[in-house]
Structure formats: C-alpha cells, structure tokens
C-alpha cells in the first residue's frame, strides 16, 4: 500500500463527504425555499384584494324621496336614486345601452352604501352629498392596472366607452382607493367587490367552539385514565392501538362518518357548526390524548410518590399534582390540534359545510361555512378578482393559524421544565 494510493483514496473520500454535505444542505435550503415561494406567491397575489376602488356619486334627494325616507327608509327606491344620480353626472350618455354600460361601473351592491350613508347621517337628507360606493370588480382590476387598458376591446372585460367614463371620473377626482374592511365586515357574495369573510370566520369560531368543548374534556379524561389509572391489560392495549390508528385515519373518512351517522342516521342539521364541530372533535381527540399522555409521562414518578407518601388518594395525586404540572403540555397539544382542525376542509365538504351561505351564522345549528371551505369555494370561482380574494383569505387563515402555533410554542418555552 503506497502513500500515493492512500492519498488518492483520502481525496476521494473527502470529496464524497463534501458532496453529501452539499446534497443535504441543499435539500434543507430547497425545503425552506419552497416555503418562502409558497407564502410569498400567495402574499403577492393577495395584495390587490386588500384595497378597493370606490366611485363617488353626487347625490341629492328630491322632496318626495325625503318624505319617503322619513316614513320608512325601506320605501325609498335606492337603486333608482343611485342610477339617476350617477347618470346625471354624465349628461352626454343618452342611449339605454350606454346607460346600462355606465351603470355597470358600479357594484351591484352600490345602493346599499347609499342607504347606509343616509341612515347614518339623517341630518344630511337635503344636502348635496358625494357618496362613495364600491366600483365593480372589473373597474377595480383596471384601476389597479391588472386589466391592461391597451389591449384591444374584445380581449378585456371592460369596454372603451366604460374606460372613457372612468377617465372622466378620475379627472373629476371621483375615484378613491380605500382599505377593504369589508373583508371582515361582509359575508360571502357572488360579487367579488362585495364578498367578505365574516360568515366563514364566525362559522370557524362556532365550529372550533364545539370541537374544543367536546374534544378537550374527553381527550384529557381519557388520557388521564390510560396514563395514570388503567391497568395494563388487553382492553387498554386495544384502546391504545386504536388511538394510534385513529390519529392516522384520513380526514375524509371522518367526513364519511359524519355524513352516515350524524346526518343520515341521527338527522342532525346539515351544514351546521354542531356537526362539523363534532366531526372535527373526533378527529382531534387522538392528538389531544397523545399530547396529554406525553405531558403526563414526562412528570417524574418521584412527585407522585411524594404525594402518596403524605396520604393522598390516587385522584388527589392526579388532580392536585400531575394534572397541574402537565397542563402547559396539554394546552400546547390542544392548541396544535385545534389549529389543525381549523385548517381542515375535506371532512366538512362531506357534511355540506361549503354551501354558499350569505347569512352570518348565530348559533351552532345554523347553516354555516368555515374559512377553509370558503377558500375552497372562492378558489373554484372563475372570476379573476376571486383569485386575489382567495389569496387574501388564505393569508388571513395562515396568520390566525401561525398565531395559534406561536402561542403553543411560547407556552412550551415558558413552562418547559426539564426534570
């Protein structure tokens, strides 16, 4: 064996070492890069959804309308008030067809803003007011430069005439860009410029409430029993294997369970947070049980022995010592489980929680949808504005979920104890 031989071999081994290290570090970088791409691509495409374009209309009510308003605001024909006032800003537009085109610049829900304005400011009934109402989604996209105005007319969803009206509005300073607070204050709508997430957010909260009050007590009680009390026998062994398996059952199967048992057999209401919450609770249960058991197993036996030593009963040991010490770990596991449930969509599709629902649910038996299901529905919407809205909704969902996870991490950091 010559020195030369050893040296070449060594060199080969070192370059293999280097190569391997490069492979593994690039795998990690790739994974993180994908995460960055995913989040940034969604963040970027959500930007247009966070602002909205409003068009100012000069409105003055005539005496009849004021009288009608004072009788009952519902009596006023808000739509015609909106149309007439808007048309009078464009005296040149005469034909029905052109007027129709002109009106299409405004959102179909524009009159609601006008009504709201007068309801909020009854002292301005007889004034000349400039009221800003949402523009239609095509106008919105055009002003945000997403629709290219230089394209030939038949390749865009907005006509040359409409662009000329818009230019006039712009030069008259009647276009205003505002933050889209309606994302939080409106519920779902077919019109992208009116659609908001309130229904989904409230639905998610209601569903998570049901999930939490079912899965937390049952999960913790079951975990305490299995970890602290249960004798080691066939029965408890079966339960254990069972829980491990349940943790890995695909979520859609839970949806089938909900459909067959809760909807068809028990006749519970469809699309309701009650059923969604129960299904997600069953899905979260194994997560909470496993986390709780891990938290309790990490408490050293010396603590238990000390408590038994002063004559505490088994329950007292658990209630006074083991449970409080394990609580941070239990809460961490619960938060992570609930966060996962809050992002879950598939089982809810099975029990009808993805219907188009305009009303904000107020109790757990109302028809409702949840945030992820709303994202799914919006993503299927062909209109371009919904693409940005979907991204915005995802961003909001992610912020909520990441905050929940951060809370869990902080909790763990703060109360983590090494025995």
């Amino acid at each position, binding site marked *: *064996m010559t020195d030369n*031989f*050893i040296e070449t*071999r*060594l060199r080969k*081994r*070192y370059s293999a070492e280097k190569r391997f290290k490069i492979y593994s570090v690039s795998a990690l970088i790739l994974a993180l890069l994908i995460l960055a791409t995913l989040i940034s691509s969604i963040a970027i495409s959500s930007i247009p959804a966070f602002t909205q374009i409003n068009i100012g209309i000069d409105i003055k009510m005539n005496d009849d309308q004021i009288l009608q308003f004072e009788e009952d605001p519902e009596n006023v024909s808000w739509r015609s008030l909106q149309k007439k006032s808007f048309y009078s800003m464009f005296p040149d537009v005469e034909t029905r067809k052109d007027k129709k085109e002109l009106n299409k610049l405004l959102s179909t829900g524009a009159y609601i803003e006008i009504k709201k304005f007068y309801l909020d400011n009854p002292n301005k009934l007889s004034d000349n007011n400039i009221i800003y109402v949402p523009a239609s989604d095509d106008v919105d996209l055009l002003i945000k430069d997403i629709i290219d105005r230089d394209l030939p007319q038949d390749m865009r969803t907005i006509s040359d005439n409409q662009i000329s009206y818009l230019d006039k509005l712009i030069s008259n300073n009647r276009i205003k860009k505002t933050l889209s607070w309606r994302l939080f204050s409106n519920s779902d709508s077919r019109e992208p410029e009116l659609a908001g997430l309130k229904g989904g957010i409230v639905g998610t909260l209601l569903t998570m409430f049901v999930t939490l009050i079912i899965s937390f007590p049952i999960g913790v009680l079951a975990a305490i029993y299995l970890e602290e009390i249960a004798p080691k026998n066939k029965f408890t062994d079966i339960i254990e294997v069972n829980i491990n398996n349940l943790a890995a059952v695909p979520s859609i199967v839970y949806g089938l369970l909900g459909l067959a048992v809760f909807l068809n057999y028990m006749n519970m209401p469809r699309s309701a947070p009650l059923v969604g919450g129960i299904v997600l609770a069953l899905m979260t249960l194994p997560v909470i049980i496993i986390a709780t058991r891990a938290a309790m197993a990490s408490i050293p036996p010396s603590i238990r022995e000390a408590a038994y030593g002063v004559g505490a009963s088994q329950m007292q040991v658990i209630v006074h010592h083991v449970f409080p010490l394990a609580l941070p770990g239990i809460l961490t596991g619960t938060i992570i489980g609930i966060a996962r449930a809050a992002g879950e969509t598939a089982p809810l599709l099975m029990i009808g929680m993805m219907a188009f629902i305009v009303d904000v649910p107020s109790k757990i038996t109302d028809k409702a949808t949840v945030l992820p299901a709303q994202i799914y529905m919006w993503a299927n919407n062909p209109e371009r504005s919904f693409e940005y809205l979907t991204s915005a909704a995802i961003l909001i969902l992610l912020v909520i979920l990441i905050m929940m996870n951060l809370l869990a991490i902080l909790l763990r950091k703060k109360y983590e104890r090494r025995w």
Partner: protein
Amino acid sequence: MKDVGSMIPNQYKITTSNVNVDYGSKRALHDINLQIEEKEVTALIGPSGCGKSTFIRCLNRMNDLIEGCKVEGKIMIDDVDINSSDTDIVELRARIGMVFQKPNPFPKSIYDNVAYGPRIHGIAKSNEDLDNIVMKSLKRAGLWNEVEDRLDASGLSLSGGQQQRLCIARAIAVNPDILLMDEPCSALDPIATAVIEELINELKERYTIVIVTHSMQQAARLSEKTAYFHLGKMIEYDVTSNIFTNPKHEMTEAYISGRIG
C-alpha cells in the same frame, strides 16, 4: 515533574505539553504534560470527573465532536502535532484505535463490524484479503473461537464481554499503533473483565495502550506507568509500582489508600 521526565528514555510515542481543555467557559483540564512510551500500557486513574476521559479523548481528537469543547496545547504523536491544521483527522483516527466505556458494536453482523474500518479505508485489496483481516483481528481479540461459526449473526446478539472484544477487534482491524481504552471494563462482570485484561496484556506486544480505569487494582495489574488525575490536573505520573507503593504526592496517597475518591 522534571525528575519524572528525566527517568524515562527519550523516545516517546506520545508527548503532550500544556494541554488545556475548556467546555464552554468551564476548564476541564489544566496544563497536562505527559510522555507515553511505545508498546507499554499507561493507565490513567483518578476519581470520577477528574478529566482522565477528557484527556484520552484529546489523543484522537474525539473532543472535536463535542459542541463548545476547545483544546489548547501541543499533542505530539510520533513527533507530529495532531492539533495542527495539517493533520488529517481521518488518517489520525485510523492510526489510533479507541475502545469505549460501553460496548458499542454497530447494529450489523459480526463480520461487518470488524470489516467496517478496513472497508472505509480501502485497506483490503480483495474479498479474501478482507476475510483474512477479519479473522486475524478476531483472533487477536480472542473472539475467533467463539464466533467462528456465526459471523453473520448481529453484533448485538453477543454478550457484553464478547461485544467489548468485538469492539477491540474492530479497532485493531484498521491496523493502528495506539489503542485508547476508556474504562473498557466498567460495564462488564468480573469474569469478562479478567478475559479483557488478559487480552490487554497480550496486545501490548504490538500496540501502545493508554487505558482509563476507575479501578486501581486494574491499573496495578495491567500497566507499566500510571498517571493520577485530580480535578482536571495531573497530580503524579510515575512507574506503576512507585505510584502504588511509594506515592510522592499526598493526594495520590490519599486516593490509593481510599481516603478520597
């Protein structure tokens, strides 16, 4: 220290001068100066936490694996400073075998355990060559007769003492000239310990052996020279019989008479 040095002939296998080791901000070894002679057994003794294991791990730079561990000073092996940046750590460790406190055979067959070193270093030219190396190493480690007919069995299926001898075979299969042993018998029963001790006595014909032990009797039985460590300092280093019959330092005496430790 000087008089100890003058006692020993000039050609040393290992010479350390002013070796300091820090774990983070805590100093584990203070100024260790030691000369180790070729083809002898040198024992390191002392109460637990005295730094003897840290020291032996300096000799093949195992401390590099520990986060926040810093080694200063010169360690010359065959007149080459192993801490210099020129030293190739892979080559160095191939020349210095190490046996650990707890037997740690790889979860592979007995054959593959012994063949592991020769394979990675490309020592064997052919399969027959490799078979030979494995056989020779197992024979030298005194394990051949026991495992001859089940080389394919897992290394983990052996008893504790056999596992430790397997680890010795694994170390000598690479053809090192120094063997470091970090309390090789502490996890073994007395019978297995006796077998290993006998083996060490045979091995010193070929290898320079540095052994850390918590048993004074073992040091007395096995070694030519003994160093006594206490709280990160080397207190005394001398011919073994001198250490045990006529210690110069009162702390050494206190330790071997059982008053501290």
